[in-house]
């Protein structure tokens, strides 16, 4: 049951999107979101939507998986849309009691919902096509200039790696302890919230004790393998931006910038 939990869902694959350098993908996501938030014209929205559609279809990620990711956010999306429908000033189309619905409101709600959906989908597309390790590694590399101003970037990356290394191990252990406690009559599934929380204590205590012991032993093992912080460290896997990464980055960023500027200046045909 616990085995199903994963940190960010990753669907391995070999498409162009999967193979792009994770750093390039992160920068692209950032550029995409900027373009999306700056969009103020149906044509700009259209372009951004087209871009996302093409990327999703190239990545071969199923639409159903993408929508599954959206489900937890559905409430926020609907809530934002409803607020926009009722609270946008303008010529009322329908009025009842204190509510009035305006044409501008409907338009804005639609755009708002579309914007949120695209934002979330694009983020999920990144996590679906990039392994969590590659992601944290890319993040650390992108942030590495901050190391110069004493932001502990290396430590952060190391923490992420170790966390990801140990999550499966600790989940397995949780399963084992749970089964052991169940065999002695522990009940994790019934009762009110308070009772269930209390039932978790005999699970959490051994889990924490073991996690601390693991941390201790791991620290010794790391020291035995000459770990002494990030200073003078090299990496076996040096990422290199391939030609395709550079191309994807420059063309996409140029397109986003062009469309955004044109949209802002209102140079599109009405």
């Amino acid at each position, binding site marked *: 049951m616990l085995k199903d939990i994963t940190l960010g869902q990753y669907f391995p694959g070999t498409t162009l999107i999967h193979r792009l350098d994770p750093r390039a993908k992160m920068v692209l996501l950032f550029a995409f979101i900027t373009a999306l938030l700056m969009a103020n014209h149906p044509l700009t929205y259209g372009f951004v939507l087209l871009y996302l559609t093409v990327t999703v279809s190239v990545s071969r990620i199923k639409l159903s998986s993408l929508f599954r990711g959206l489900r937890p956010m559905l409430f926020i999306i609907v809530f934002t849309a409803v607020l926009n429908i009722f609270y946008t000033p303008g010529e009322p189309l329908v009025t009842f009691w204190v509510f009035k619905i305006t044409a501008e409101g409907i338009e804005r709600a639609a755009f708002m919902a579309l914007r949120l959906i695209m934002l979330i989908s694009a983020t999920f597309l990144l996590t679906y096509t990039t392994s969590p*390790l590659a992601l944290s590694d890319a993040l650390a590399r992108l942030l590495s200039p901050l190391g110069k101003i004493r932001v502990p970037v290396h430590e952060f990356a190391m923490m992420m*790696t*170790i966390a*990801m*290394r140990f999550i*499966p*191990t600790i989940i*397995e252990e949780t399963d084992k302890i749970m089964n052991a406690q169940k065999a002695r009559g522990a009940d994790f599934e019934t009762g009110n919230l308070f009772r269930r929380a209390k039932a978790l204590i005999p699970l959490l205590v051994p889990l924490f004790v073991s996690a601390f*012991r*693991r941390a201790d*032993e*791991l620290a*010794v*093992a*790391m*020291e*035995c*393998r*000459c*770990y*002494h912080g990030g200073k*003078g*460290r*090299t*990496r*076996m*896997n*040096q990422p290199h931006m391939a030609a395709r990464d550079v191309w994807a980055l420059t063309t996409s960023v140029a397109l986003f910038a062009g469309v955004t500027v044109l949209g802002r200046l209102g140079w599109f045909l009405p």
Partner: protein
Amino acid sequence: MDEIIRFEHVSYSYPTEVAAADKDGAASGSSEDRSVTPAPALNGVSLAVRRGETVALLGHNGSGKSTLVKMLNGMLTPDTGTVTVCGMDTGGDPLKIRQQVGLVFQNPDNQIVATVVDEDVAFALENLGVPPAEIRERVDAALRDVGMSEYKSHAPHRLSGGQKQRVAIAGVLAMNPTVLALDEPTAMLDPKGRVEVMETVRRLNAEKGVTVVMVTHHMNEAALFDRVVVMDKGAVALDGSPREVFRRAEELQALGLTVPQTVALAQALGLDAAPLTEEECADAIYHAYKGEPHC
């Protein structure tokens, strides 16, 4: 004689809370306090290990085996006495000493750092600042040496215990150490995993001449080494070839240890022999009852 490891009159006590409180200079420790101080973990150990030797370290719980192993790469340094490895005092530059002595521990899960096998094996070399191309080469070689090449892009948590422990061995082997020290590496493994690890260790010794020091509770494993050192109360109690040591079954029993099953059988039959393999055991019994000389 090509000595790789040398312990000279090494003593060590773990810092206790009482001692720590004393240092704070609070109410000065009375003599009663001192009497609770536990016995030292190592008490005047002198030991020399030659290049290419394989040494099994035995002893009951708390006899100081793990402490001795941690002395080998400077994780612990003696209170009095000296430990020299490859001509270097272990109190010196820790990075240099740790490269010479690879330490492998009991729980393979708690010594694997990365989420991919080959990245874990690369960990030590990355720490040492080795250039990427050379890391790749040495990682591939280390994985080949422990027979785990085909698993190089697997996730460690999907491997069996024996495989994980071999990855951990590869992780220190990548540093090209002179000494491989293992603290009960087989204790958490199933019989199959134990055989895998023992075979790997023996092959590394035979093919690459790596000096091996290994703590174990399995007498049948100890019988496979060149030399057996038995610890008791922080000191070396017995030291010799497996045959010599296991012949002294009564002393071993007094130290809380057993002998390999083959030796136990021979001795139960009243033979004055220490057969280390089943073959030898059968031979010894055969010859004893035929009235011929045996080993």
